[in-house]
């Protein structure tokens, strides 16, 4: 039997076991929406802006390890989606983005709602396709899902002209696919892994540094085993939080620009560094020349060869799928039965203990003004440390990363690479669809939340009982912090005047709004929101200290040990 292109799209989604598609309709995708309407296997989530569709699909994937799917129309639908696609690309999130296109016979004629989708998105996708013939549609979709989730994951876009979704052909969905030009390495080089084991066992001051790759590849269990077997200290990047339990004593917390004193000091003073699924980016190692000037041996495990020796020279590169490489490392360690030198390791832990005793995350909480850190601490307590937490971008994001200890992977959902304000609320929606039973909190700022505030309407439609924790400092806080520290307190355009009444705003969307102004009210309000209003969306507007800053801080371009600590000020 022959199927139309639109029917083929639906069948492919079903074959891929896609249960949710986030999207927004328009002329060029109407055939596809018509087919969505006629079936009930794939649920469509109507957002209020295409950017949010992609963010939601992205978080759906981040919190579940399924491929996220978004569907948008041509032209403005696509350009609205670009921020979402670029955000997912920077954090290597597997997505399939389906876009409508004007009919093939109009392409290139500046037709209504035509844009060069493949051209616009090329630099921010893993790969993209324009399907010109309905006969290529099924195989292209198969390729798209395969590319999105294998190797280093990423968003893949499939552009479908309107005449292609209307045309008919036989349907066959291939079970397997190979692409001759695409063969990601999976198995790490055994010789290199042996070298790594030797280095690790000889280390006097070893350190393990892990990133988003551990989360994306579901390698947490193996990582925990490895770290415990070795007894080494470990730190995670912003993207790696939850890959190793925050509450474990071997964990030094996050490193980098706003990392802990102990993590950054250990990075600078270690003699052997094992980097796993992380990419030594500027927010993590600070100045690469400074970082590289310190003699230490580096072992780097990553699925993407181009991440290795990109910013930092590596001594033992291991290209491979993280869990497989970790399994091999563990097997070698068990087989060899050699143990790291206990004496040296004890001395190293003593150094770390001293760094830790600085207690770099302490902050003053008085009786009058709510400190943003305090809200996150209380959020942690009230949710038992077991919520899914999304965030936007700014100080609140760093506070959430620093003060909400993530013990499990895929619980901390934020835009690390692109740093996109506006992701928080759509991220929370995506998480909730992927994990309907979970407690989901969105830690945001009064500026960020306004970038996708329209999604409160989507939340109403789908009755999503999210908890929005708005750390309202009336400033573009992170911008203001930089202006305070590096621009002589000239707060150019970082004050947010004319804020809406968030309580009324939430209520107008049919949600519950709360304003919390006193430190003593923080915990009771949170308890009320998470228990009494468990099944409602609660917008909690916390009026926080206006000038709180995020510390420790490594200024841009500085070395990791050149930290500014709260106590120095």
């Amino acid at each position, binding site marked *: 039997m022959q199927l139309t292109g639109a029917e083929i799209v639906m069948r492919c989604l079903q074959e891929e076991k896609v249960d949710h598609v986030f999207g927004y309709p328009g002329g060029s995708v109407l055939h596809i929406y018509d087919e969505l309407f006629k079936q009930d296997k794939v649920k469509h989530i109507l957002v209020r802006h295409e950017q949010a569709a992609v963010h939601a699909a992205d978080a759906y994937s981040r919190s579940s390890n399924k491929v996220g799917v978004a569907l948008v129309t041509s032209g403005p639908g696509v350009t609205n989606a670009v921020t979402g696609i670029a955000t997912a690309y920077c954090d290597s999130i597997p997505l399939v983005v389906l876009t409508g296109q004007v009919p093939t016979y109009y392409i290139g004629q500046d037709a209504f709602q035509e844009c060069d989708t*493949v*051209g616009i998105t*090329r*630099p921010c996708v*893993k*790969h993209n396709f*324009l399907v010109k013939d309905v006969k290529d549609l099924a195989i292209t979709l198969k390729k798209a899902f395969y*590319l999105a989730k294998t190797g280093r994951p990423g968003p893949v876009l499939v552009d479908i002209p309107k005449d292609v979704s209307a045309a008919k052909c036989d349907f066959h969905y291939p079970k397997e696919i190979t*692409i*001759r*030009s*695409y063969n990601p390495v999976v198995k790490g080089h055994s010789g290199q892994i042996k070298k790594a084991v030797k280095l690790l066992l000889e280390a006097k001051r070893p350190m393990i540094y892990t990133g988003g790759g551990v989360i994306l590849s579901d390698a947490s269990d193996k990582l925990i085993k490895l770290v415990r077997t070795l007894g080494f200290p470990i730190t995670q990047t912003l993207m790696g939080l939850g890959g190793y339990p925050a509450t474990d004593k071997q964990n030094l917390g996050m490193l980098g620009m706003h990392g802990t004193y102990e993590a950054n000091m250990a990075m600078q003073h270690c003699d052997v560094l094992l980097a796993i699924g992380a990419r030594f980016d500027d927010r993590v190692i600070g100045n690469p020349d400074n970082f590289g000037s310190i003699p230490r041996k580096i072992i780097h495990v990553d699925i*993407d*060869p*181009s991440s290795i*020796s*990109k910013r930092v020279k590596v001594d033992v590169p291991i290209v491979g799928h993280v869990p497989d490489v970790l399994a091999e490392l563990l097997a070698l360690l068990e087989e060899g039965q050699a143990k790291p030198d206990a004496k040296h390791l004890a001395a190293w832990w003593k150094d770390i203990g001293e760094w830790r005793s600085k207690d770099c995350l302490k902050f003053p909480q008085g009786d009058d003004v709510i400190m943003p850190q305090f809200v996150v601490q209380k959020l942690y307590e009230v949710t038992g440390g077991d919520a899914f937490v999304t965030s936007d971008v700014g100080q609140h994001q760093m506070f959430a990363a620093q003060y909400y200890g993530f013990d499990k992977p895929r619980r901390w959902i934020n835009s690390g690479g692109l740093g996109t304000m506006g992701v928080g609320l759509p991220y929370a929606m995506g998480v909730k669809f992927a994990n309907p039973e979970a407690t989901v909190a969105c830690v945001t700022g009064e500026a960020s939340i306004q970038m996708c505030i329209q999604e409160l309407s989507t939340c109403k439609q789908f009755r999503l009982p999210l908890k929005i924790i708005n750390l309202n400092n009336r400033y573009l806080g992170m911008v203001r912090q930089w202006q305070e520290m590096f621009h002589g307190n000239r707060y150019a355009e970082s004050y947010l005047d004319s804020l809406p009444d968030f309580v009324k705003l939430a209520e107008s969307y049919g949600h519950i709004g709360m304003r919390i102004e006193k430190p003593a009210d923080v915990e009771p309000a949170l308890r009320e929101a998470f228990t009494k209003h468990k099944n409602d969306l609660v917008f909690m507007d916390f009026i926080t200290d206006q000038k709180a800053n995020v510390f420790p801080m490594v200024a841009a371009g500085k070395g990791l040990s050149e930290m500014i600590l709260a106590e120095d000020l």
Partner: protein
Amino acid sequence: MRHIISILIENEAGALSRVAGLFSARGYNIETLTVAPTEDSSLSRMTIVTNGSDDVIEQITKQLNKLVDVVKVVDLSEAPHVERELMLVKVRAAGKDREEMKRMADIFRGRIIDVTETTYVIELTGTSSKLDSFIEALDKALILETVRTGVSGIGRGDRILKI
């Protein structure tokens, strides 16, 4: 340092823009780029001449390999290879210059492939530096137009780039 990178890439619409986009997005430099289908029409072969430190060249090859359409990448300059570039030069060839132009073309083993009463088109193949030398040797005032293909390269002997 100068490197010649050979790429086998799927002969798909947009494949060239992926490569060109990669170079511009990451700030790599392209001195010349040539591309044409191979004997297997599903594949194109591209030759790129670029410049950069060893680290940059390593990144270029890794990033090229990461492109989904790219089948194979080889840095030809790592081992013995031959490279050739084709140039067409239109020169003024009237009066006493006519004989001189023919002589120059002969010295450089060029061929005159178009003749009018006042002009020649000279075809010259060789390494880029040979083509440069030819231009140098000509009287600038007589050069009307030049066009070069950019470098094509191939490994010597057993070095074969094929799938």
